[in-house]
Structures are given as C-alpha cells and as structure tokens.
C-alpha cells in the first residue's frame, strides 16, 4: 500500500488559535519557512514533526494531514 500526503489543516488550525507562522515555528523549533512550506504542501514533515504538530493542536496526525492511497 502506497500512501501520499495530499494536504493538511495546519494553516486553519494555526489561524484558529491566532498564531503567526513564526510563533508556531518557535513552538516546533523549526524555521518559519518550514512551517510555510508544510502549509502550502511543498514539504512533507518527518513523522516526529508531524506528530509534534498534531499534538500541539490536540489532534492526531491523520486529522491534521490528509493522506490518500495511490
């Protein structure tokens, strides 16, 4: 089974909490550019960062990242 990350809800979850990309980046200990790249779907984060992002928003990885079977 081959899975593909087709999108995510990071931007929605971040803006709902009134956070800037820089604030979320600081919380995740990554650069602001990395948060932006994840939000626009240019970069798929590592499992560790995906879990950290999901936990930060009190959610699960599958609720935050949209995954489809190829």
């Amino acid at each position, binding site marked *: 089974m081959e899975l593909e990350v087709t999108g995510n809800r990071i931007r929605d979850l971040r803006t709902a909490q009134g956070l800037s990309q820089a604030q979320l980046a600081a919380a995740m200990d*990554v*650069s602001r550019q*990395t948060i932006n*790249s994840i939000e626009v779907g240019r970069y798929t984060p590592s499992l560790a960062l995906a879990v950290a992002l999901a936990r930060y928003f009190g959610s699960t990885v599958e609720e935050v990242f949209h995954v489809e079977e190829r």
Partner: protein
Amino acid sequence: MSKSVKRKLFFWAGPAFCLLMGVVYLVAARASGQPALGLMLLIFMVVFTVVLVIVSRYSETVRGLLDRGDERINQIDLRATAAAASALIVAIIGGAVYELARGHSGAPYTWLAVVGGVVYIGAVVVLRSKR
C-alpha cells in the same frame, strides 16, 4: 548535551572551520615562500566568516545550514551536497578519461575516484547496518 547547546556548537563549528582554513592557507603559503598570498587568503576567509555570521542573523536558511536545527533545511543541504558531489564525480571521471586519452596514467583523477568510491561503499555499509 541539551539541544540548544548542541545547536550552538554546530552553529559555531562552520565559522571556526573557515577561520582555521584561513590560518592553514597562511601557513601553507608562507611555507612555499608566498606570505602575501597567504595573508590575502587569511583576510578573505576572515571576511567570509564575518559575512556568514552576519547573514545568519537575517537568513533562516543560512542559520539552519549552520546550526543543523531544521529538518527541512538539513534535507535541502543533503540534496545540494549530493548535487555538488555528482558534479565532482562527472569532473573527476572526465579528467581521468582526458588524462588517459593523452597517454598519461589518469592521476590524480583516478586516485580521487578511488577515494570517492571507497568512501561511498564504506558509507553504504555503515549506514545500512544502522538503518
């Protein structure tokens, strides 16, 4: 060692290496009787190091390349290094073929190819056992 201490050490390792290379260039040039060239190279490396540190305050990418703290920039660095290595491989093979065609032994390109090949195989063996 905490993550922030590790990042600070990584951050300063790059500039420290650049300064060290400046001193090495100076010593090597002085040993060959070219102190002015050595001094020029040292000054170049000092200026490069200062510029690198200043730019890192404004650029997340440069800061990430130095402190190794961002997984995306680490991945970019890895791919950029692979691209640079690919260019070097082409240049080394091209140089070796050119030297062989001229009736020479192919050195030093053949030796560079041997070093690259041995390091690559060694790295694959070590990394395979770890992953």
